[in-house]
Structures are given as C-alpha cells and as structure tokens.
C-alpha cells in the first residue's frame, strides 16, 4: 500500500513556531484533495498535540503517515511524562502555568479535543522518560 511519510522536529523552546508541523500536514492533505472536514480534524488534533509537546515536554518529534483512507500521527517526546493518563484526559484538567494560560492555552481541553477529533487515540507515557501519543483519523 502506498503511504506518504512525513517527519518533523517540534522545537520545544519556541512557542511562536508551535503548529508549524500541523500546518504543513494540513497543507499537504489539502493539496492531495482530502475532504475539508477530514483535513480540519487532522489539523486540530495534531495541533493540540504539537502544542502539548511544546508547553509540557520541551518539544519532540512528529511522524505522520498518510494512507489513501486515513492518517496516522505519532507525537513522541522525551519530556516529564504523564503520571495519571486518565486524569490528564479529563476536560479541564491542566498543570499549565499562568503564563501559558495567558497565551490562550492551558484550559485542559487539549487531550479531550484530540480524542474528539480523532478516530483512535493512544497515549504511552513513562514518568521521567517521555510520552508518545498516537492519533488516527479516518477520512470521511
């Protein structure tokens, strides 16, 4: 099966550039003629994940595999990890600082949004080692 594989370094020191990878994926899917609704779901889910890598985990790597009928996204960081994934998934739960909040993030809606806009989501996390988030979005 043909698959397009894209890889991005997500810079953890630069809040301004957070979203570059998601934007590039969005552009690629659009150019490939994927339905706009599906493109938006991928863009939002990946963008929230990318923001999380920057504000919670000092950046990391994003690998995106585009198949004819879906996208698989792996967001991998070597950050602090998530101690209680169930708690982290709760809408409104956030450990973000006031300075992050003042930038418009840290409402504790990122992981719930990723869940909402993806068809499959898995979080593998080890405290002190890092976190990998897997997202799958099936095209309409």
């Amino acid at each position: 099966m043909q698959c397009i594989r894209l890889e991005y370094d997500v810079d953890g020191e630069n809040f301004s550039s957070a979203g570059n990878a998601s934007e590039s994926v969005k552009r690629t899917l659009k150019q490939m003629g994927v339905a706009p609704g599906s493109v938006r779901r991928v863009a939002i889910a990946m963008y929230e994940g990318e923001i999380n890598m920057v504000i919670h985990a000092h950046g990391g790597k994003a690998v995106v595999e585009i198949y004819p009928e879906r996208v698989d996204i792996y967001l991998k960081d070597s950050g602090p990890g998530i101690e209680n994934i169930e708690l982290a998934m709760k809408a409104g739960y956030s450990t973000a600082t006031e300075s992050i909040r003042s930038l418009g993030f840290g409402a504790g809606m990122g992981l719930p949004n990723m869940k909402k806009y993806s068809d499959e989501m898995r979080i593998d996390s080890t405290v002190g080692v890092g976190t990998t988030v897997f997202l799958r979005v099936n095209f309409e």
Partner: protein
Amino acid sequence: MTIRDVVRLLDAEILCGEEHLDTEIHTACGSDMMSDVLAYVKDQSVLLTGLLNPQVVRTAEMMDMLCIVFVRGKRPEQEVIDLARSKGIVLLSTEKRLFVACGILYTNGLGG
C-alpha cells in the same frame, strides 16, 4: 454580511488582507482561550479575541477562519501580521471591548 461590514460596524483598522474584504461571513466567535475555539467552533469565519500571539493566527488557520478581530485597540507584532498575510487571513483592530464588539456584530445579523 461581508468583512467590509465588520470593519464599518466596529470602526476597525485593517492590519492586513485588504483584498479579502468582500468575502461573505455568517458566523463568529469571541474567546481568549484557543482550546475552547478549537473545541466548540464549527465553521465560524471570524474570531474576536484579546490575545495577540501567533497561535491566535494558527488557531484561526486550523479552523479555516477568514478574519481575526483584535479588541480593545490591541495590535499584534509585525511577525503576527506577516503570518496572517501569508495565510490570507484578514486582521482587524478595534477600540471596542470583546463583549461590545461581539454584541454589535450579533445585533447586526452575524450568528454564533
């Protein structure tokens, strides 16, 4: 209404995107929390906000929004204006506060 009507109703300054002023818009949302915008917005074309950082433009881009209105007379840095221009997003700045600006647009027929 069109984006040109928003400019008139809010007495707004156009920061970039003059060429898109005749684009039709039907709905808007006002928020300072970008995750809320990403969570609840559906096909809204205008974002009103008091935030000025580049992630406001990126959030609008992810949602396929057409126009951002900065309230309380705020203006973002040139970097943010350039980012919006490169994405074809119109940036406006109004002296009005968020609540008032949203109210004016709502009263004049823009939906939520």
